[in-house]
């Protein structure tokens, strides 16, 4: 399973340019709204008008501008699950799923469709119409419809974002199972970091039509190459920095000198994730900084603390820390000042 894409596309003032290579991994495409994620999928599927470059799947060229090859969507063997599912409202679930199997003889088609409906737990709904289904059911139908044609590439455009929150967990689990079985290349577009991290192996970070990073998810999350990638992967704490040599970096916005484990040549910025900020019991340790609590907010499961560093300039807060609720119970009674610890292993050093 081999997939290479090197494409440039234009839509009005927006220009997309990226390259992507994978061997059957699940690729997550992460980025904010308007970054070009959907456009990327559409370009690969053959739905986007002005695309130049090369797209090759298992040696078969879907697009090759240098040779004038540009296959229409129907010949690309691509399965696309739209954000809105795009189920045909005037066809039943079974008819929707069978749509791409026109060329099969009807007996085979029926068996195949029934099998798929069974695997996706849709067999009781075969005769229903899309408007009679719940969001999760519609999503499964859309997935079945895309997969039943045995595509070489599966493209999923924010498959969970249309669902009610409480359904997402269940549907995500289903999706994970389905993706595990799928033998082709899967591209999963989302603006949710958690989804992408859980469901994919490799991540492409997209912003303003350009790829900012591409690699295994651990790499991207643990060693974001740039400030923007760090931000896009959910990092909340940043400081301008200056390398001082010997694994020590000065954090200018935090007013501190920190030891960092990450090997680096340049150090322009430092960053650390909110959930990696820990609290020390006493001052004086390595990377331990005095601070006080400015504000805190809570989610059902966590608490976010907004901390002001004594060593830093300016009022307001400098660091965000995310802790579990029981940790909060322990901390909240403590007298000021508190001490945060920035684990050297967790501090990102970025050259830009």
């Amino acid at each position, binding site marked *: 399973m081999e997939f290479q894409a090197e494409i440039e596309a234009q839509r009005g003032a927006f220009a997309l340019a990226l390259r992507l290579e994978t061997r059957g991994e699940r690729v997550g495409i992460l980025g904010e709204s308007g970054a070009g994620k959907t456009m990327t999928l*559409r370009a690969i*599927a*053959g*739905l986007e008008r002005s695309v130049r470059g090369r797209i090759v799947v298992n040696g078969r060229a879907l697009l090759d501008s240098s040779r004038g090859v540009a296959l*229409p*969507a*129907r*010949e*690309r063997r*691509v*399965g*696309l699950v*739209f954000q*809105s599912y*795009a189920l*045909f*409202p*005037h066809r039943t679930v079974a008819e929707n799923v069978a*749509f*791409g199997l*026109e*060329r099969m003889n009807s007996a085979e088609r029926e068996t195949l469709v029934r099998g798929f409906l069974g695997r996706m737990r849709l067999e009781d709904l075969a005769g229903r*119409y899309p*408007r*009679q289904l719940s969001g999760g059911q519609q999503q499964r139908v859309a997935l079945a*419809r*895309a997969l039943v*044609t045995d595509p070489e590439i599966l493209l999923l455009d924010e498959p969970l974002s249309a669902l009610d929150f409480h359904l997402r967990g269940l549907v995500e689990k289903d999706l994970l199972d389905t993706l595990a079985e799928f033998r082709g290349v899967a591209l999963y577009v989302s603006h949710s970091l958690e989804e992408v991290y859980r469901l994919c192996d490799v991540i492409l970070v997209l912003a303003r039509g350009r790829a900012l990073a591409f690699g295994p998810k651990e790499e991207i999350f643990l060693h974001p190459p740039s400030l923007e990638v760090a931000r896009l992967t959910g990092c909340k704490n940043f400081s301008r920095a200056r390398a001082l040599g010997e694994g020590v970096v000065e954090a200018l916005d935090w007013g501190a000198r920190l030891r960092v484990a990450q090997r680096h040549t340049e150090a322009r910025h430092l960053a650390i994730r909110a959930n990696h900020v820990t609290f020390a019991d006493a001052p004086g340790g390595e990377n331990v900084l005095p601070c006080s609590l400015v504000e805190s907010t809570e989610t059902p499961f966590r608490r976010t603390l907004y901390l002001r560093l004594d060593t830093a300039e300016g009022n307001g807060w400098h660091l965000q820390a995310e802790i579990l609720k029981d940790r909060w119970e322990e901390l909240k009674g403590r007298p000021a000042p508190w001490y945060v610890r920035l684990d050297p292993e967790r501090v990102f050093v970025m050259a830009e």
Partner: protein
Amino acid sequence: MWFYDAREIAHGMDLSPIRISLETSVAATAVVTLAGTLAARWRIRRRGVVYELVDGFFLLPLVLPPTVVGFLLLLMFGRASVLGGILYSLGARLVFSWPATVVAAAVTTFPLMYMTARAALEQVDAPMVEAARTLGASEARVFREILLPLAWPGLAAGMVLTFARALGDFGATLILAGNIPGKTQTLPIAIFFAVEAGDTREAVRWSLVTVAISLAALGALNLWTRHRKGLAMRVVEQE
């Protein structure tokens, strides 16, 4: 008045304008539905200034007074023209024939169907069309199985509009097909000449018939729309 009319009808009054109008309107509606839908489908897949000029051309009969349309058709198909001369030498006579009533009605109603069909096709959700394409459907299949069924309510409304307008066409029909009782004299033409001749009763009679036919067509559309909604509701209730 009604009493005398009924007796006249019983005595075999010339009802040909009704027959001619119905035949003409049905034929024109059939032709225009096909042509208008195909033209709309052709147009929506293309972008660019050239195609916007094509729109202007398609919509021309709507903007011009019907008499001008008829006159232009006469110029195109009359014996004195190139096209007409060719037809004439082949033994075909379009001017003053029944087919001319269909041509006149079709040309004047084409813009209506074209615009309605375009709107109906364009309001079909783009992702649905695209999904069909990624699933391997040819453009013809996409049109047949996705666009047409989903655009159908709009297209049906267009057909009714077309029928009603074709029924009422006067200026273009008169010039191209002429007033030949029993052959090309449609209801509007009969009404006009009845008024000219001062025969108010006849004019009123034909007018009422025209109104009745139009109401019947609109009523049929309403019934059908409600029937479809009823079907949809029943499906929803099953959930």
